[in-house]
């Protein structure tokens, strides 16, 4: 009888615990502030964890990931120096690590250039790693259309994207399991924080007070409306007549100068990733100007819109700029700067 009572009491205790937990107020909300990563908030609001979520993330993993991103190699958990992921590039050759769009809900290259000038950021072909874990697809739109099966998996998976970037974009090798985890852990450390989303006091209040009346789904949707879940990527064309340039557009040499410095010279500086140096020498501008009408990649229209390809014997190449990364207007701005400097 005593034994039976014990069982009943135990069962009642478990049921009570479950009931208490189920109806427990969302007390965690009170801890959320500007520094709280938004994934924590979303998970607390019932968001399903993405495939690239790591159950275990240590500061060591983050540090290793950062080293891989910045230099292409790191020290493995066993203490051995890893080989370089790519002989030619590191991730930061094409990607920034910090916020690059002033408004996270827009991908406007004009606004981005202003932001890059103000914050002295490179103006690059690929999107920033800041907030990359908060996106829901990668290698979007025309990348899928053009490259098909090569990028289809990467379009739906951050881990596949990292591997695709390492092997195809950087012309390197696949990352080992621990390297992939380290890079992913570093990416999680670059995720958006509540304070970066530009939430109104009212919106922040909804989260902080944990208004039980608010629908978690609505809160999640509100949060996700504050940033883009994907970076659109559409490929542009060179103008049909390169001599005339893009129809109806007039370049601004002042903005073109910034593009030349923050974009072209980022890779084509002395000691940069390219043999083809672009300095401020008049001869360089004359050469660029002379090549503009040509149907080859030395024409700025051609190289910006189509890039070059890695070929056997010469793996380094230049990726093109989708129009979201450099607008036609900006190409004309660059051209006008070259024309001005070549005189």
């Amino acid at each position, binding site marked *: 009888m005593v034994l039976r009572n014990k069982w009943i009491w135990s069962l009642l205790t478990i049921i009570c615990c479950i009931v208490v937990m189920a109806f427990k107020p969302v007390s965690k909300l009170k801890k959320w502030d500007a520094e709280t990563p938004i994934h924590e908030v979303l998970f607390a609001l019932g968001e399903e964890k993405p495939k690239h979520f790591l159950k275990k993330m240590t500061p060591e993993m983050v540090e290793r990931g950062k080293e891989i991103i910045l230099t292409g190699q790191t020290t493995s958990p066993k203490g051995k120096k890893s080989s370089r992921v790519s*002989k*030619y590039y590191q991730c930061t050759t094409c990607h920034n690590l910090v916020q690059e769009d002033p408004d996270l809900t827009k991908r406007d290259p004009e606004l981005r250039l202003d932001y890059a000038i103000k914050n002295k950021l490179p103006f690059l072909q690929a999107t920033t790693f800041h907030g990359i874990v908060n996106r829901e697809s990668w290698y979007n739109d025309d990348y899928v259309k053009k490259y098909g099966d090569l990028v289809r998996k990467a379009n739906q998976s951050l881990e596949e994207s990292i591997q695709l970037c390492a092997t195809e974009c950087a012309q390197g090798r696949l990352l080992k399991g621990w390297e992939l985890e380290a890079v992913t852990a570093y990416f999680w450390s670059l995720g958006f924080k509540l304070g970066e989303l530009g939430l109104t006091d009212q919106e922040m209040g909804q989260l902080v007070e944990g208004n039980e009346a608010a629908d978690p789904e609505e809160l999640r949707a509100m949060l996700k409306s504050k940033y883009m879940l994907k970076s659109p990527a559409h490929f542009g064309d060179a103008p049909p007549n390169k001599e005339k340039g893009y129809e109806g557009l007039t370049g601004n040499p002042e903005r073109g100068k910034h593009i030349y410095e923050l974009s072209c010279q980022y890779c084509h500086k002395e*000691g*940069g*990733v390219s*043999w083809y140096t672009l300095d401020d*020498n008049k*001869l360089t501008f004359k*050469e660029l100007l002379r090549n503009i009408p040509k149907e080859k990649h030395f024409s700025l229209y051609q190289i910006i819109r189509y890039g070059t390809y890695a070929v056997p014997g010469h793996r*380094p190449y230049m990726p093109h700029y989708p129009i979201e990364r450099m607008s036609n207007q900006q190409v004309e701005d660059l051209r006008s700067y070259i024309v001005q400097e070549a005189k």
Partner: protein
Amino acid sequence: MKLKTAILMLLLMGSLVFAQEKELVNGIFRGSRIINSHSLETQRAGEFEFILSHRFGTIENGISDLFGLDVARMRMGFAYGATSWLTLGVGRSTFEKTYDGYVKARILRQKKGGLPFSMTYLGSTAIRTQAFGPQDSIAASKFTNRLFYTHQIMIGSKISDRLSIQIMPTLVHRNFIDSREEETNDVFAIGGAMRFRLTKTLALSGEYYYVLPGQLRDGFVNSAAIGIEISTNGHDFQIELTNSQGMQEKIFITETTSRWSDMGIRMGFNLSRKFKARGKWF
């Protein structure tokens, strides 16, 4: 004494300019060679350069030997950038089967709004390995007598976007000279070179070595060369006309015999390809 003080002051000024962190002037010359001469440029750290040079026979025989193309001297060389300021190199020339090894060290760098010139030191050793003939002195075949040394200071400046110049006070020491002739073991020469860029990828170059009188026996003349330089990504081509058949200092400075005035002109080329041996490629 005054000269020493002046040089010291100049170096001191250079050091002061360095301290101001001004922007370096890059690419005074495109490659590591001007024509026969070294340029003051060193390899980037971890960069490996393969350079293949040919000097053909004189053009004086015309079509019969295809303007000298039937006769060729070749040097194959490798240079490696141990650091961004120190280059180590080796090479072998078919002329007297001569091997050479050298170090090139940057001493000063030209800076925008600062020091107006760059300075590099070149130290080179050459060994003749070709067997001596019966007409040569027996002493010449001794190993130490086969050695030649060159010390050179290269001072150069990018005068404008198009024009770069370089002067090269040079000392060539020959361990052995034929005592039957009026010659000196040490040969002092002053070289001058220029590069004029026609476009971003095309340039004209020229160089001339003046050997101070009384050091070489009759028949030896000063080396002079002109060339055209074509640069592509990774490859540099130099096509030249010169009166020297050697591509090592001891040969073209002290052993040039052909005269431009007598059609003793030779065609030649340098072809260089750079690789990255250490660190990230680019």
